């Protein structure tokens, strides 16, 4: 979204058409461009002990990820939000967790 300056001066973002002037920053999706976002989600695990030593046990080797792209017009989820994209997919962990 556009981040307009307050009365076009300083570094504070303005609020409302009566304060907004110019731009300090723009985080909207630019036209004809691709924006990349990356999300890191740790798999849940339980801490325990094995043979008297600290041990970690994976709760599940598969994580079901819900991906949603929302437009939240007024900054809050207040009933005006609109879903632009939705996807669900399992992400599976394979191989051995050696350094537990």
């Amino acid at each position: 979204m556009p981040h307009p300056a307050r009365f076009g001066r300083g570094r504070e973002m303005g609020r409302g058409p009566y304060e907004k002037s110019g731009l300090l920053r723009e985080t909207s999706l630019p036209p004809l461009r691709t924006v990349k976002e990356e999300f890191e989600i740790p798999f849940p695990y339980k801490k325990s002990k094995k043979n008297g030593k600290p041990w970690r046990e994976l709760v599940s080797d598969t994580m079901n990820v819900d991906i949603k792209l929302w437009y939240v017009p007024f900054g809050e989820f207040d009933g005006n939000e609109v879903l632009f994209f939705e996807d669900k997919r399992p992400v599976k962990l394979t191989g051995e967790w050696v350094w537990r």
Partner: protein
Amino acid sequence: MIGRRLFTISLLFSLCFYLSSALPLLAKGGPKPAPQPKAKTLEELAERYDSESCAECHEEIYDQWENSLHARSILGTGRTAPTILTAIDKGLKNFPFSGVKKDDDITVESLMFCAKCHLPQLDEATDDVAREIVATIRTWQKANKEGNDDLADEMEEKIESLNIGCMVCHNKVAIIHKWADGYPQPDTVYGSQEGEHDHPDFDKMAKAPAIGESIFCGQCHGLGPNFELDEPSQCATLYGSYLYAYIPDGGSESCQECHMKKSGLGHDMEAYRSENMRKMAIDVHVDSMAYYWRKNKEEGVIPLAVVKMEITNKAGHVIPDG
């Protein structure tokens, strides 16, 4: 010889006379018309720009328009009207040189802060109308808070009667380059055709040269600060991003091509509220993987999922705007 010369001269004279009398038919606009008497009430202003008479012949277009936010440009999605009040209460009343300390001080000039785009025809009304608009919005807001549904509905209908209707786009703001193309004439509907028009008040049609171009929408849909105002307001930067990001990156489609034609929405120009427009606007590609990540000394190796998203904006402007 003299006879032939006289004939040639009179033929040239006739041709010149014909062309000069035909020119007004070819001109898109005309001389600056005398201003109409100012509308003294909200109802009078609404009636002046009421679109219902257009519906008799243009029913499909009228139905499309009626579903759009143009048909409720002061009410908006329900946030526009309250924001006008906020602009007055938090803005104008706190600006030492605005001349507005209370609602009675509000003038057309003060409200043009918002009405420049939300109700350009307000410049044809008296200051009383500006004050009546603000009073109506306050009554509507109070009625909603108090649960007085009947009064809220009545006020909502009154606010909705002011809008960007047919004769705003097809007359008042139809011609952008007035010195080159002439001023909109009060008896003419401007669009893509010329000729006679079957309407008692607007009996002519003429072409609005830029009505199918993005610059037409850009009159209201945002270049940033409205510098022509003594106190520039800023709502939208959409047209600015069209000009300075979309076009330089090789874009070439107009607002109308996407929002009216490709979308199939016609005069129900929509943005994010339409599922079709949302699909036209962006492509999303998702990739995911999982691995064991050596994070740090304290936590060591932890299992991690990585979800990568690529979001491509296919629209002719930034998303979102505001």
